[in-house]
Structures are given as structure tokens and as C-alpha cells.
């Protein structure tokens, strides 16, 4: 036996040695199920992140108003003058 490309014997034997039975369909399905669990986990995690971003964005206008008020010395003075509960 030799491995010269002209001699197909060894490549044939080498290929034969590597022959295996195809997997049963339930084996492939089980493995895909394991993957789906990981995918579902990531999708849930992404959904949580999207929800958090949406909540943050929804709160942005209110946050901006509060920020403007805090940065405006005149309004801040008026609030202090009005006292607590004003």
C-alpha cells in the first residue's frame, strides 16, 4: 500500500475506516432542543434588556424636566423660598 495519488487504494481504505452510521433523527432533535434552550435564554435576556431600555426612554422627558429645573438657579431659589410642600 502507498499513498501516491495515482493509487486510490489507501484513500479508499482511509475513507472506509472513517465510515460511520448516520445519526438517528431523535438524536439530532434532542441536540437541537438543547440549543433551543440556550436560544430561549438569550431571547428572554434580550427582551429584558429591551424592556429596560424602553422604560428608560419613557422616563426621559420627565427626567429632562427635573434636570432643567435643578440646573435653573432662579427656579431652584423660588422652590427654596416657597418652602417645603410647595
Amino acid at each position, binding site marked *: 500500500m502507498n499513498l501516491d495519488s495515482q493509487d486510490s487504494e489507501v484513500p479508499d481504505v482511509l475513507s472506509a475506516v472513517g465510515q460511520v452510521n448516520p445519526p438517528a433523527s431523535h438524536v439530532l432533535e434532542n441536540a437541537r432542543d*438543547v440549543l433551543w434552550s440556550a436560544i430561549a435564554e438569550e431571547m428572554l435576556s434580550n427582551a429584558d434588556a429591551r424592556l429596560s431600555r424602553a422604560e428608560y426612554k419613557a422616563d426621559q422627558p420627565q427626567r429632562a424636566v427635573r434636570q432643567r429645573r435643578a440646573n435653573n438657579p432662579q427656579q431652584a431659589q423660588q422652590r427654596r423660598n416657597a418652602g417645603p410642600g410647595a
Partner: protein
Amino acid sequence: MRDGPLIAQSLRGTPEAFVEIVRRHEVAIHGYLTRRAGQRAADDLLGEVWVRAFGARDGYDTSHEDARPWLYGIARNVLRAHWRTGQNVELALPEEVLDPWDEITDRLDSAVRVRALVSALGKLPSTERDVLLLVAWEQLTPAEAAITLSIPPGTARSRLHRARTTLRQILAEPADETEVRK
């Protein structure tokens, strides 16, 4: 759609797109696992390969159109972890000890020519045998085998050349100098 864009899509908010990658390559990856660890281990490890691949897909070079070489690399890592846990987990055994080549020999046909070839393959250094079998069994090019093994393409080519040369020399030895007498 080719594998690269599909994996990119799975990273851009459509993770389920990765299932198509699995459907395309599941038989090949299962075959790879079976050839090296036996059918039962392959059945058990296939899901682990998908989960690891899914978790590592942001490291995939999406310019590579065929994901198989990358998937073989992940399957190889899963196998190595499997072999390590099959031995003494606390011992960092060298790779040669972990290599289950004897198990593969046991699974194969006992015809003399096949046994001679398997014996010869078993004598190759594992680094050379890895490249040879990725090319011969998984139909990868040397450049693709290099991706699987995370080595430069030139190294893969030279290992393949050495493996073929060594195998030719071993097979050319008279039968009484080899283990064919079994």
C-alpha cells in the same frame, strides 16, 4: 444564505437563525464526534457542541462562508473536555494519553489492510493525524483544517505532508516489522 451572514443575523437580534446553521452541519459534526469517540458519546456530546458554538458565535469570522471548520474546532474542544473528564479530572494528562485511538481501532473492521492502516495512523503524532483525518474524513482543505486547529495554513500543509510521508513509510515496512501480525 451562506453561513457567515446567517451567523451575523443570529447576532443581530435573531438568535434563532443559528438553528439553520445546526441543520446544515449536524450530520457532519455528529460523524466527526462518532469517528473519534464512538456513537454513544457523539449522541451525548452533540447538544453541547451546539450550545458552545451558539455562545461563541460572536467570535466567528463572518467572512468565512462555511462554518464547518469552525464547528469542528468547537467539537474538538468538547471532545477534549470529554476525554479529560473520562480520565482522572485532577490530573493534567498529556494529550497523547487522552487520545482514544485504541477505542477507534477496536471499532473498526478487522480486515488486515484496514488494520494495517489504522495501526499506521495510530503511530502518527496526534498533531499530524489531526490534519490528515480532517482532510481525509471530513473533506476539509488544509486551509480549513488550519481554522479548525487554530494553526497557520502553512503549518497545516506541512503537517499534512509529514503525515502522508510517515504513513507511506510505515505502510512500506515489511509486515513482520509492523503490527499487522495480530
